[in-house]
């Protein structure tokens, strides 16, 4: 963090002490969510998501693979994330950073734990299944990549059309009609704790000022994944009340997802 970030963090803290957020949002308000499904027609599924100033592009590709040894009747799912150097001055090229690995694994965990993809529908024949690759491309970083990436991944899956199996490990990508079978949708909510305040969907300045962060992923009824981050802490009662907020926020984001598909 440079000098500007420290000054900005202090400003954010002073405002929060008065109960005000830098951009005037409510404590548990999301920034505007804009979803552009099908942004990359070559990919089987794709979506660009703008969560305030954060922009994430997700492409979902589907190809023929061998199943995992422990799940011979199920398709495979792989989630990766790239924090592209063009997304922020502090992102560098090179091998995946712990931050990008954590991002991809938390998105993976929510989608996998809630059985969002009907992996059994991806079975082709003995020893052959469809593999779904979800690639998260961060194009502009303005805070809260977890929620933006989960929304974009869900939108890309909802938008995905399956290729047709041609035999001999080959897929016909020209024929893509039937949708990818989904069983549920997850919504991710990320909270930042800054001194004594806890707020939803931190922007980049709020993230820089944050002591702790927690992401809670739900399917609207149950918690499906959680991940705490940064050096600060939460009390168990804070976690309990954030689970409530997360469950309450589910429908709000889900309806944005659904209306974007029309």
């Amino acid at each position, binding site marked *: 963090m440079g000098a500007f970030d420290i000054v900005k963090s202090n400003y954010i803290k002073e405002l929060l002490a008065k109960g005000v957020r830098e951009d005037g949002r409510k404590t548990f308000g999301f920034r505007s969510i804009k979803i552009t499904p099908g942004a990359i027609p070559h990919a089987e599924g794709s979506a660009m998501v703008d969560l305030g100033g954060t922009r994430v592009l997700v492409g979902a590709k589907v190809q023929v693979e061998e199943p995992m040894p*422990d*799940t011979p*009747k*199920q398709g495979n799912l792989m989630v990766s994330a790239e924090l592209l150097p063009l997304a922020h001055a502090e992102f560098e090229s090179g091998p*995946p950073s*712990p*931050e990008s*690995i*954590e991002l*991809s*694994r938390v998105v993976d*965990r*929510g989608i*996998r*734990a*809630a059985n969002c993809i009907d992996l059994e529908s991806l079975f082709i024949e003995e020893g052959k299944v469809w593999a779904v690759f979800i690639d998260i491309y961060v194009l502009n970083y303005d805070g809260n990549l977890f929620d933006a990436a989960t929304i974009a991944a869900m939108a890309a899956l909802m938008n995905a059309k399956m290729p047709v199996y041609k035999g001999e490990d080959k897929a016909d990508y020209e024929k893509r009609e039937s949708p990818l079978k989904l069983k549920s949708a997850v919504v991710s909510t990320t909270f930042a704790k800054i001194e004594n305040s806890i707020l939803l969907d931190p922007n980049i300045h709020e993230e820089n000022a944050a002591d702790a962060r*927690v992401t809670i992923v739900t*399917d609207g*009824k*149950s*918690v*499906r*994944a*959680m*991940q*705490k*981050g*940064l*050096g*600060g*802490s*939460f*009390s*168990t009662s804070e*976690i*309990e009340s954030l*689970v*409530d907020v997360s*469950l309450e926020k589910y429908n709000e984001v889900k309806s944005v997802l659904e209306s974007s598909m029309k």
Partner: protein
Amino acid sequence: MASKADKPELIIGNKRLDGRGFNDLRPLKVEASVLKNADGSAYVEWGNNKILAAVFGPKEAMPKHVQDPVKAIIKCKYSMAPFSSMGEHGRSGPNRRAIEISKVTREAFENVVMLNDYPGSEIDIFIEVLQSDGGTRAAGITAAAVALASAGIHMKDLIYAVSVGKIGEELVIDMNMIEDNYSDSDMPMAISPRNGDVLLLQMDGIMSKSEVKKGMAMVLEAGKAISKIQKDALNKVYSRGENGNGV
């Protein structure tokens, strides 16, 4: 989580496969200061887990550009030996899981290590899983806390970690590998026992709001026994009392 088709019966008549009740920890043994070269170290046997933790530092942070003039930085590396699991030979080198665990472990310790006491320094934490049987990240944190204390590093608290899981409708503490493989949820947590603060929280699977609440309470309760074993291990090496060797 493995496929449900070949799922064994994990709970029979309110007992788990290894005979434990839902709130019972596996046998836990902690030994402090087990390695000569490290500034601090600990060895933990927790069920069939065998884990070594070692701490080096505080020392000058390298390379120089990572130095923070006002506080120490923590580097943490969790890794599993290629021979540590039942079944196939593991791949050596850090995988994505190990990198994530290293990151969340580091963040848990950043909360309690008094970083401002060591400006410009780094503190290295190495966690080596020699044998794994479920719950290795929790066992690694529990070991590393003792290793940091035995290195004499200033800390606000001696933290511990343990996982709570869900098998069918039951919440169970400290799952072993077979339970972990077929469980419906897993929620590892690290706790600062002096105030009950949550320093590490991960979860996947399916849990209702009330199950999250009950699970967290089980982790806090189990911590009393874990903390005592950690402190006993340190006392054994460092106290001048009747159990200590008066180092």
